[in-house]
């Protein structure tokens, strides 16, 4: 009884689904577009929803669809909206917004259930929209979303395809989709692994103003880096080929800031920088005495900038997803395009090196002290220059100044808005790296030593589970470079001289971890013994590291599956081929498979044409030879009638042959004698043309 009621309910649900696959379409479409619409402006979102609602109300029977003229007006309106929103820049985002609006509008053109053309077009475009979400994020959660939404789209496809018949049971449809999916999966995996990966973009759309994530910027002011230090977000992950270098070598070079007004630091004006692009192959001109090579792979999270972080100083770089990378004249490594997707590249860096200057201009620029600001800093620097006439000694004096004057290294130094360098050096004496770096550079400039601020990341955090290293936003750092004795830029990190007891506890990453650990709100945490706490902490650490390890492997092997990994796989299989060869290999492989399949079916067909059929064919050929025109598609009865009419004298033998044939073919049991008889009769058949 219970079961029957369940069946009834299921049937009701089914009939609803069937009845309303029209009304389900706009809902599924909206869900499909949602991740994209979420990031666009409200008006585009609303216009899509408006069109879909219209269609929804229509399919529920409330209102009529617009006529052709009104649709035309709506198209014009949507184009105006798009134009207002994006101007005349046709970027990826514009293209997707246009696609979303047009798909929603297309729904209004569906005339009836039988309008296969429009419905199929809409569903295929929806599949495409689904795929484009991966251009913005490639996380596992998005993959799950896309898969589930794809399932619903496919269900709709099945429902519309089945019209006007009522939908089969849900169980059947899920079964069908499961079969389709599982059978398609091996094909997808094989294609994924072996489809040639062609390097480089085929075309490029202008960069759009994608919403920036937290991370380094090319501007620095007091508080800008310490703001980042609270972020646990991952900037990039690193796999070292061997062991990582010592802690004092772990400086990941980012933007070099040369220009300042005393408060804000920025890169030197772009007209200088753009003119000079240094190819990676030429980098050895600027690096001398390089020693201690380290090789590693960086998996960079998208940060919407061109920067490719690497240990100072990179000399070799390769990667399939990066293109036309170069050094700017500050010797920062840049990619031609902005990094919108997870990007992997391999770098070899020299951690011990001497950096020569790219141009004389650069040194002059690094001497500019902003007018009328930070006058105390200026006078301190000038004072040192007067006393000491040795650049190295001046630097040592400056570092000693930080060391002995009760300076503290802290994340929360408080705001310094006016004359920040003076305020930091002579009043507060508490600061984060940007305070140290900027004041140090200003002191050097005041003393006549060219100096500049370098920003980037410092340090690494080991993931014990996956044996790789993580660099987080909290590793963001700023340090200084000074030009020494007209020979070389030298890295000076003023924060490194601060004695350990003057570093406030919140600086260390472990503390950050402990903080977030305690924020987990585990009940009775305070009551646990310290040993238990450590055990619990270690467990928590292992779990989070395992999760991150999973993400890393996902990034590394699925998202980062590129040309080089494909080549690796192929060489493991004993095939040496670049992508051009791979295309040839694939096309010829497909041709071979196609031909063999054809040959097999042909052979099978040949085997199937058994003796009886062969003699039946000879019989027909004989008839045709004698002047009849019999097609193979004619039934034996038709042939019999025609043949007897044409050759009445052979009527009896024709009749026997056909009757035998029908007996052999259609009787439940076949007598071997009958077959023999049939064959001999065909052989003996003599057609008399004379009527």
């Amino acid at each position, binding site marked *: 009884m219970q079961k029957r009621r369940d069946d009834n309910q299921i049937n009701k649900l089914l009939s609803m689904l069937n009845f309303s696959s029209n009304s389900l379409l706009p809902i599924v479409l909206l869900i499909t577009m949602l991740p994209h619409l979420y990031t666009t402006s409200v008006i585009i979102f609303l216009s899509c929803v408006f069109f879909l609602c219209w269609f929804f109300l229509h399919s529920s029977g409330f209102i009529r669809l617009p006529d052709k003229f009104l649709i035309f007006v709506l198209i014009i309106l949507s184009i105006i909206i798009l134009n207002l929103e994006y101007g005349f820049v046709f970027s990826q985002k514009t293209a997707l917004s246009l696609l979303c609006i047009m798909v929603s509008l297309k729904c209004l053109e569906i005339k009836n259930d039988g309008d296969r053309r429009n419905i199929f077009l809409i569903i295929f475009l929806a599949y495409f929209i689904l795929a484009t979400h991966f*251009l913005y994020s490639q996380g596992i959660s998005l993959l799950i979303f896309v898969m589930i939404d794809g399932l619903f789209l496919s269900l709709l496809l099945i429902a519309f395809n089945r019209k006007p*018949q009522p939908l089969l049971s849900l169980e059947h449809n899920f079964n069908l989709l499961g079969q389709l999916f599982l059978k398609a999966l091996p094909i997808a995996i094989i294609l994924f692994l072996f489809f040639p990966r062609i390097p480089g973009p085929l075309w490029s759309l202008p960069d759009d103003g994608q919403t920036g994530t937290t991370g380094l910027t090319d501007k620095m002011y007091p508080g800008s880096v310490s703001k980042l230090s609270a972020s646990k977000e991952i900037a990039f992950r690193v796999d070292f080929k061997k062991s990582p270098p010592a802690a004092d070598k772990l400086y990941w070079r980012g933007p070099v800031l040369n220009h300042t007004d005393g408060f804000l630091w920025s890169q030197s004006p772009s007209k200088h920088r753009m003119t000079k692009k240094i190819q990676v192959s030429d980098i050895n001109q600027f690096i001398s005495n390089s020693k201690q090579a380290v090789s590693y792979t960086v998996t960079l999270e998208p940060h919407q900038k061109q920067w490719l972080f690497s240990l100072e100083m990179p000399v070799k770089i390769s990667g399939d997803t990066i293109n036309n990378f170069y050094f700017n004249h500050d010797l920062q490594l840049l990619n031609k395009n902005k990094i919108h997707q997870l990007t992997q590249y391999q770098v070899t860096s020299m951690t011990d090196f001497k950096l020569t200057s790219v141009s004389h201009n650069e040194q002059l620029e690094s001497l500019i002290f902003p007018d009328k600001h930070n006058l105390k800093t200026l006078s301190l620097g000038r004072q040192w220059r007067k006393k000491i006439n040795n650049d190295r000694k001046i630097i040592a004096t400056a570092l000693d100044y930080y060391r002995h004057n009760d300076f503290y290294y802290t994340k929360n130094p408080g705001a310094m808005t006016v004359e920040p360098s003076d305020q930091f050096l002579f009043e507060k004496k508490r600061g984060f790296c940007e305070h140290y770096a900027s004041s140090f550079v200003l002191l050097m400039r005041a003393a006549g030593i060219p100096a500049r601020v370098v920003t980037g990341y410092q340090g690494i955090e080991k993931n014990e589970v996956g044996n790789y290293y993580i660099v987080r936003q909290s590793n963001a750092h700023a340090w200084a470079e000074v030009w020494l004795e007209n020979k070389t830029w030298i890295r000076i990190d003023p924060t490194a001289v601060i004695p350990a007891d003057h570093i406030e506890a919140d600086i260390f990453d472990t503390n950050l971890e402990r903080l977030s650990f305690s924020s987990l709100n585990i009940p009775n945490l305070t009551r646990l013994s310290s040993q238990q706490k450590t055990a619990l902490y270690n467990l928590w650490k292992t779990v989070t590291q395992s999760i991150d390890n999973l993400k890393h492997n996902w990034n590394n092997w699925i998202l980062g599956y590129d040309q080089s990994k494909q080549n690796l796989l192929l060489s493991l299989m004993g095939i040496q081929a670049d992508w051009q060869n791979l295309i040839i290999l694939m096309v010829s492989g497909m041709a071979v498979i196609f031909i063999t399949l054809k040959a097999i079916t042909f052979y099978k067909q040949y085997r199937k044409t058994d003796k009886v059929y062969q003699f039946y064919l000879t019989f027909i050929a004989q008839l045709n030879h004698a002047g009849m025109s019999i097609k193979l598609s004619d*039934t034996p009865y038709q042939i019999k009638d025609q043949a007897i009419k044409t050759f009445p004298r052979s009527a009896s033998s024709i009749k026997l042959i056909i009757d035998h044939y029908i007996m052999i073919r259609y009787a439940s049991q076949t007598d071997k004698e009958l077959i023999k008889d049939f064959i001999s009769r065909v052989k003996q058949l003599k057609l008399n043309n004379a009527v």
Partner: protein
Amino acid sequence: MLAAAINFNNSLVFFFTFLMVGMGIISMHMTQQNLLKLQLTIAHVPPVFCRQNLSLPLILLHKKNPVTNIDIDHHSIAVQLWGKDLLLTDVFNNEKSILQLHCPTTQRGNFKLPALTISSRYPLGLFRAWSNVKLHCNAIVYPGQSINKTYQPKSGAGSDGISPEGRGFDDFSGFKSYQQGDSLKHIHWKAYAREQGLLSKTFSGSTNHEYWLDYNELSGDTESRLSQLCYLIVQAEQKGDRYGLILSNKTIQISQGQKHQHQCLKALALF
């Protein structure tokens, strides 16, 4: 999609695209499988007069492989006679599915069924598998009827020497063994209850007629003569007359009943 994947070198777009490709290929295969092993036969077709619609019961059945014996269902099979609407049906394993095809007739004789197109778009509608099937059907199309009220058939009694007592409806004259086509009203049910077999009562009556319908005595061309004969046979059967048919190549003895009528009309159809 593939272009987008290559352009942005995006692994998941690649994967999604290839999954779609895979599903397309598999659905193509499934569409073809859906049409395979389908057995089509035409069941008995009741004869019609020319220019009437012939209704053909098409039986679809899954042809089971006796070795593997796997259950296979066929979904959304579309059958189409040339120029007609699609008929859709499902064929479940071990179940016959019957479709009524309607076909206009234009010619008397053995009905030649035009090729049927059976097709299927199941499951996703990306592909359409189809096949043209020529089926043999034993359908007879009688000539059309054309009214002739002037023809006076010659009486059957004198023509052949066979002069059985006329059978009519008015006066009871005896029993004869039941023949197919005899009216149920005339069965002697009491005798049947006594287990004497089925007996029909015979009647003699003054309204009873017995005559020959002769092709040669009619005027007009072949087709119109046949049509007139057709009309006369139907009329005679309705009136309960006994009649025989004389064609140039065939003679059918005087009799009556459904079977006799069919025999006569068939002779006309195949003339």
